[in-house]
């Protein structure tokens, strides 16, 4: 009995290793090794052809003082800051509307979710058409006497245009997530506050918002991390231009990669990682503090 028990335990241990082997093999080859390699390369001058040459932290100090990279950081921060305030706010507003007893709610929800199913490339291509100088957006605003713009070719309007297209794409995701959270707030909380004579703003402030708190945090975490990696929209809509007005961190990384500055590109990647890790710590801290 004892023998067979330990035998079956041994079999289970063996089975455990066998079952994780494919996943671990992929993770080691295409995750752990690359993460370590790019840490090393970020400390070297490397063009992919001749062996990497150790330069210590030079790539990092160089990047932080280089106008192209700092411009890319600035653009990305603007992209995240605008996208992650306007987007979730619109998403929450839409979810609050969808949470009311109105007809066609399912239809509306599907409509808002449609852009989420499309890839960022599709969305970007479609918006490139809409925002064309002779396009339908200009035709529309000209009806109101506003002169048409070369939205994507003007360095003042290019980044805002990319931001609008991105918000449009993500709105349905934020809406659906907020809607699910709204519907999970127990109705008796609203009833109780009504009995206490709370007005609709007070109910929103003291029942809805606290109930949504974890979801709001989730939307920000996912959204901010994703937004900092913005690339597809920029590549398709503006190619980083005009005059680097839409150059973002990942676009900058890909440019350096294509110019065979692999050391610098790796340093960009690690700066992005550090930035996201720092943000996660801040979010974790906010979460802890607000729970207390």
């Amino acid at each position, binding site marked *: 009995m004892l023998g067979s028990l330990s035998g079956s335990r041994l079999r289970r241990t063996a089975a455990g290793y066998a079952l994780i082997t*494919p996943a*671990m093999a992929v993770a080691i080859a295409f995750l752990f090794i*690359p*993460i370590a390699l*790019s840490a090393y390369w970020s400390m070297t001058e490397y063009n992919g052809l001749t062996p990497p040459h150790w330069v210590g932290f030079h790539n990092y100090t160089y990047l932080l003082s280089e106008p192209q990279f700092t411009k890319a950081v600035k653009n990305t921060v603007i992209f995240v800051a605008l996208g992650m305030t306007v987007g979730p706010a619109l998403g929450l507003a839409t979810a609050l509307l969808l949470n009311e007893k109105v007809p066609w709610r399912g239809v509306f929800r599907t409509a*808002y979710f449609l852009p989420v199913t499309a890839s960022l490339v599709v969305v970007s291509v479609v918006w490139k058409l809409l925002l064309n100088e002779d396009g339908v957006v200009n035709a529309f605003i000209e009806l109101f006497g506003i002169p048409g713009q070369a939205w994507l070719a003007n360095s003042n309007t290019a980044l805002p245009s990319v931001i609008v297209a991105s918000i449009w794409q993500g709105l349905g995701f934020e809406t659906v*997530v907020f809607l699910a959270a709204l519907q999970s707030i127990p109705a008796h909380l609203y009833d109780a506050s009504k009995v206490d004579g709370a007005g609709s703003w007070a109910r929103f402030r003291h029942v809805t918002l606290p109930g949504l708190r974890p979801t709001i945090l989730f939307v920000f975490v996912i959204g901010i991390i994703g937004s900092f990696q913005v690339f597809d929209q920029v590549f398709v809509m503006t190619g980083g231009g005009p005059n680097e007005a839409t150059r973002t961190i990942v676009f900058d990384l890909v440019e350096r990669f294509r110019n065979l500055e692999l050391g610098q590109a790796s340093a960009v990647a690690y700066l992005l990682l550090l930035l996201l890790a720092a943000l996660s710590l801040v979010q974790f801290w906010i979460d802890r503090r607000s729970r207390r």
Partner: protein
Amino acid sequence: MNASNGRRALIFAALCAGSLLMIGPFVWAIGTSLKIPAEVFASPPQFIPRPFTLEGYKDVFTVLPFPRYLLNSIIVSVSIVALNVVFGTAAAYAFAKLHFPGRNFLFGALLVTLMVPFQVNLIPLYRIMVELHKISPVIGVDTYFGLIAPSAVQVFGIFLMRQYISTIPDSILESARLDGASEMRILRTIIFPLARPAVATLAIFTFVTAWNDFLWPLIITNSESMRTLPVGLAMLSRKNSVNWTDTMAGTVLTILPMLLVFAVLQRRFIEGLTAGAVKGSG
């Protein structure tokens, strides 16, 4: 009563306007794909294509290599889904229910990589693929292997499946073991059927991510014949003089399969894309 009816009418109107803004661009894209190039930027804008033509779709299927892009996208996405479902679930079962030395350490090591953005792996991954291609022409850069392998097992998928499998009672597994079932058999005949909702979520999530993926397919493909739909479409839209009817026909072709999946599996689809959103953060 009247005030609340008025309020509801207002909300309804706002939702109609918002939905129009969401659907409008798609309708415009479809309309454009059915126009002749000279009419794309006609002033005033023409909502109904006149003359109506399928030239754009003909170009996309005959002149442009879109059938090949479509085939590539299908091969790559379906392979990635299958590999993730099989290997991801297998690993998740082991991490959730089997005890072996190093289990928590290995799972922890995987979870830590969730913090690492893909761009950190991008360059070494490309160099690894360049080296692999020297070993054999069917692996590495510009091959299906290169497109598929880095996404073959996704840590988020393992995490998702492990969460679900953890909720399956041990007693079911124990009685199967007493009946002499091997762990492989338990995985096949108990875990997979019981974890079907989670498998569906994983499959949808992985399919959408793979189908829409852009950065990696852009980097790893060189030849036209290996491009996926998003890469082919992006390249078409970046030409100096864009043929917008062809580009929009390509756009429609790119989103159509996704819309079909969405139409059939709408509820599951939304759950899959917002996986863990509400429950996970609560």
